[in-house]
């Protein structure tokens, strides 16, 4: 249940952006959850719905989407889709790959109410 701690970090970040723009409140958050970030999107949404109270996010809805897991092969250079527990190159089968999508947990955008600047 580290999703609660992550929700609080998300709300801190949303408030920081809201204050920076002089906004009255936050209306909506869009988050991208990488399957390799170790965070479950459903759980994050549930934890967020409790954690948002009493902050500029009190009325803000959360929308999350899963990032695709993609790897770039260091042998053949191809970038292909992969499964979280099997990060092999789909083209040549090599395990010498680098994850290029799916490891991050990102606050993509935020809708502010009455932003002043």
């Amino acid at each position: 249940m580290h999703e609660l701690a992550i929700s609080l970090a998300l709300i801190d970040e949303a408030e920081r952006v809201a204050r920076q723009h002089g906004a009255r409140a936050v209306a909506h958050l869009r988050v991208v959850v990488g399957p390799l970030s170790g965070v479950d999107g459903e759980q994050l949404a549930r934890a967020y719905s409790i954690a948002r109270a009493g902050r500029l996010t009190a009325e803000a809805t959360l929308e999350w989407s899963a990032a695709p897991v993609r790897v770039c092969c260091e042998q053949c250079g191809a970038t292909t889709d992969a499964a979280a527990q099997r990060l092999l190159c789909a083209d040549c089968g090599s395990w010498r790959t680098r994850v290029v999508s799916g490891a991050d947990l990102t606050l993509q955008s935020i809708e502010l109410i009455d932003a002043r600047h």
Partner: protein
Amino acid sequence: MCETCGCAVATERPAATETITVMRGILDQNAAQAAHNRAHFEAHDVLALNLMSAPGSGKTALLERTIDELAGRLRCAVIEGDLETDNDARRIRRHGVPAIQITTGATCHLDAAMVHEALHQLPLAGLDVVFIENVGNLVCPASFALGTHADIALLSVPEGDDKAAKYPVMFRAASLVLVSKADLLPVFEDFSVAAVRTAVQALANPAPVLTVSVKSGVGILDWVEWLCAAVAARRARPGAEPSRAPAHFSAAPFAQPS
């Protein structure tokens, strides 16, 4: 209400919404604190290691044995993370090294801020290695960088050899995987160390997989050698890359799994 005719149209201007693109990591604040911790370790030429596993995999027992083995060679200290009790810190202190206990209460992982508080209670100037024993949990600790140079994942034989595939976030980031309680391998005939190696490799992780047993002593010398080489490698490359991604500990002193 409209002041002109009394109709129900609101006269207050509607709230204006504006969409701002942010594209920032939600855990950036923890990452910044982790970088700060790293700077503390680097400033004192200390190698910091994050030990993670399920509860009961033998992290504390391994550390107790390791401290005894390293006596006179490397100066160690331990930061212990548990939900409750200071049992583990007391066990470590009996071996003559400093240990700081973090009790997290209901929190299922250590984060960089907790480690920062603890590291200020350690005499970093007189140390070579700081072990951070994370809360026993194969899920949550994997999401929080602490500022350590390497993550080490333990997997004990009774847990089964499929854990790396089941907990990819943890095992993908490990710079070293230790199969602990290896003295039980003859009893748990289904457990295949080769299967662990294959699963770790399927996570695009070149980390070596070593078998160790505190009870029989098997693999302890390899592990100690890995530690000494890691200290030497870090000193040879000050400002080495952070450890969250698997390939970063490329100075790993052991042969890559084939």
